[in-house]
């Protein structure tokens, strides 16, 4: 992890290969409490379909709010104990559903019924929070031109997708043909490291999947780099691959789709990599919604104050506040970092050494970009210094000798621009009706009223 003595050579990270390792996943028992996140802010007054005390079955689709079709799949059979509001990354408001599981599973029959009555296309409405996650836009019926199955994680250390690709070949085959029928996609590409090509050969043969090798050096598994290097199509900086009809899906999700259509029961067990403080890896299978603390207990991991719990990889993951944070359908890995390994950032200015510029896989002029981001000139940063070309690999922050939180600034810049754009869109009709001078007058009036109110108080 440290910079090598010979600094002329840039740091190179290799993705871990699992081909020669026999991995036996550790199965975590059904926990005493399961928390599911519904992608909808918690609203106490909106009428709910289920209430505290109601019983849910394993694999049951919970459409909690009557006026919304947002749903989660219950991963256990049990009784709902409470609802909570939860703030995710970047203030994303979610509803947390806490369930107390029973020891024996009773499986929900809705998917079976739907499949038997309406055929395989009916599965579309059940797959959103399948282990590994599905792109919501794809399930909503948008045009799917190409489906890219990632047999490798975007970030380092995690080996979940590789493990699934290796161990669930037949489920993946079924998953691929099912997803082809469900979405109508013809072109399915599987991106794999060289080490897995042989073992994944069976997937390509049976169901018409193109296997493509991606380099084993970070960050070549990044969707935008896969697009450029493997698909030969550069995604414009202001567009997402999804807008071009190209969807990236974890291998785990495809295997889960295969299991779902075969057994006609939604799979609720998530595979994930746990990386301990000493960087050893364990593959774990746990119910979605299992608190991390249950996994730590099973693996004999003890945490102390000022340690760090990272969801996802070391370069682009997110951190969580509490040990009882639950496993999400998209949690590929959990990494524990000891407090002594936590690097600190500084408020030093950029010294223009150029390390970031040279390591940037997207050729962003990071040295200039960071100056504008520090000064909150987000629009100039986007227009002139390629803010939106950033593929979010985090290498710039990693190499910065000033320890500037470059990547953090970039994310903040993108977030702020998004926020400004949304606000402008929301305000647009009003600004059209009201010319600018009038707004100034209103503010003056307001100040006057405020001043008058103060005088009155005095």
């Amino acid at each position, binding site marked *: 992890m440290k910079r090598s003595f010979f600094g*002329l050579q840039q740091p190179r990270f290799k993705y871990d290969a699992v081909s020669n390792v026999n991995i036996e996943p550790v199965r975590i028992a059904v926990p005493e409490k399961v928390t599911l996140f519904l992608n909808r802010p918690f609203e106490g007054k909106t009428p709910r379909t289920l209430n505290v005390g109601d019983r849910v079955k394993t694999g049951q689709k919970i459409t909690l709010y009557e006026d919304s079709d947002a749903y989660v799949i219950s991963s256990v059979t049990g009784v709902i104990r409470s609802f909570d509001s939860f703030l995710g990354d970047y203030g994303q408001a979610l509803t947390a559903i806490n369930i107390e599981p029973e020891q024996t599973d009773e499986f929900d029959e809705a998917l079976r019924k739907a499949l038997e009555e309406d055929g395989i296309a009916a599965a579309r409405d059940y797959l959103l929070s399948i282990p590994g996650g599905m792109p919501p836009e794809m399930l909503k019926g948008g045009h799917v031109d190409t489906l890219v199955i990632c047999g490798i994680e975007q970030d380092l250390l995690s080996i979940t997708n590789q493990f699934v690709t290796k161990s669930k070949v037949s489920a993946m085959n079924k998953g691929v043909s099912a997803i082809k029928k469900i979405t109508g996609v013809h072109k399915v590409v599987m991106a794999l490291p060289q080490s897995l090509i042989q073992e994944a050969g069976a997937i390509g043969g049976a169901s018409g999947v193109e296997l493509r090798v991606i380099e084993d050096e970070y960050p070549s598994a990044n969707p935008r780099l896969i697009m450029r290097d493997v698909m030969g199509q550069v995604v414009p900086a202001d567009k997402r691959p999804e807008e071009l009809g190209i969807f990236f899906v974890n291998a785990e999700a495809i295997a889960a789709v295969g299991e779902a259509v075969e057994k006609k029961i939604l799979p609720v067990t998530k595979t994930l990599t746990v990386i301990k403080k000493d960087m050893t890896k364990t593959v774990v299978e746990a119910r979605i919604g299992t608190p991390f603390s249950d996994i730590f207990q099973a693996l004999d991991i003890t945490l102390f104050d000022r340690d760090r719990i990272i969801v996802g990889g070391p370069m682009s993951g997110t951190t969580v506040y*509490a040990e009882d944070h639950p496993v999400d359908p998209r949690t590929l890995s959990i990494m524990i970092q000891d407090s002594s390994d936590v690097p600190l950032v500084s408020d030093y200015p950029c010294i223009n050494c150029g390390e970031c510029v040279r390591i940037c896989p997207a050729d962003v002029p990071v040295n200039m970009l960071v100056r504008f981001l520090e000064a909150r000139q987000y629009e100039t940063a986007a227009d002139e210094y390629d803010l939106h070309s950033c593929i979010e690999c985090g290498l710039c922050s990693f190499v910065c000798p000033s320890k500037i939180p470059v990547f953090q600034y970039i994310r903040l810049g993108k977030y702020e621009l998004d926020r400004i754009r949304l606000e402008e869109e929301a305000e647009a009709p009003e600004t059209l009706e009201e010319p600018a001078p009038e707004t100034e007058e209103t503010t003056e009036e307001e100040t006057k009223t405020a001043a008058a109110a103060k005088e009155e108080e005095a």
Partner: protein
Amino acid sequence: MYNRKKFIVSHAPFWHDGSWIAQRSYNILLAALPAVILSIYYYGLPALGVVALSVSSAMLWELGFTRVSKTADTIGDGSAAVIGMMFAMLLPPVAPWWLIVAGTFLAVVIGKMIYGGIGGNPFNPAVLAYAIIGVSWWDYLNFDAAIVNYDLGFITMFPLALAKHAGMHTDLFNVQQIISSYNLTDLLMGRQVGGIGATFGLGLLLGGIYLIIRGIIRWEISISFLAGVGFTALLFQAADPGRYAGPLFHLLTGYTLLGAFFLATEDSSSPVNFLPMLIYGAAAGILTVLIRNIGAYPEGVIFAILVVNLINPLLDKIRPKALGKVT
């Protein structure tokens, strides 16, 4: 709820390669040591005095500035020490104390701190200070005069000044003959007159290679600078061998090696992209020889570097198109 463990929560990435500005500064100081130590060996305590005063006064100016401006102390990053060291390396072995203190003030305060400190300086601070001092008190920077009391056992004339003088009076001197009186080993081993840190060619080469290998300076700038000097000198020599010295002489005398490895490569005032670095270095090299051969000064590195420092922001506009950029 309240006796929960408290974890560190922050945004990605969660790794850092451990590099730090102070580490870069101390490596530059380390790489500069061989050249400086050899001069101290030749010139004794006066040279040591110049180096020590220059480094310490530069650091104190920075400390003073941060205290007065009530900003965070930055003295620990080693940048001021490097500036002091670079300034001392440019000076003759004997220099009055006030000249050094004034010079480091110009370097640290005028050259760096008023632009916002490290990373903000448009010019190499030490070079800027030397240029101002040189314009103001030229006599004190005359190498030959400074070491008039020494008996060193080698030619005590600044090679570039001698060559220039001979070139201007071709009726009295033969340039090639004068140049051949300096043999290669002498120039490499520091047996020539010049700045404290500029005479020991071999030491500077080793220091430079060390910094390149460590990734602290960029080989693109150093190599293209040396190539620019060598190529231009070659052209001049080919045009009129009776008036102009050859490439090897230009490469190993004056501030050429110091400039190539320590001055032109200063982070803040040099470009970061590949092609701009090559242009920047080559332009500095070409300008150096132009000033030496057809300008008024015998030594051209100082002004050449200041001029290319100026074009650095423009040069860095030459850059690869970012991923997914439409226009």
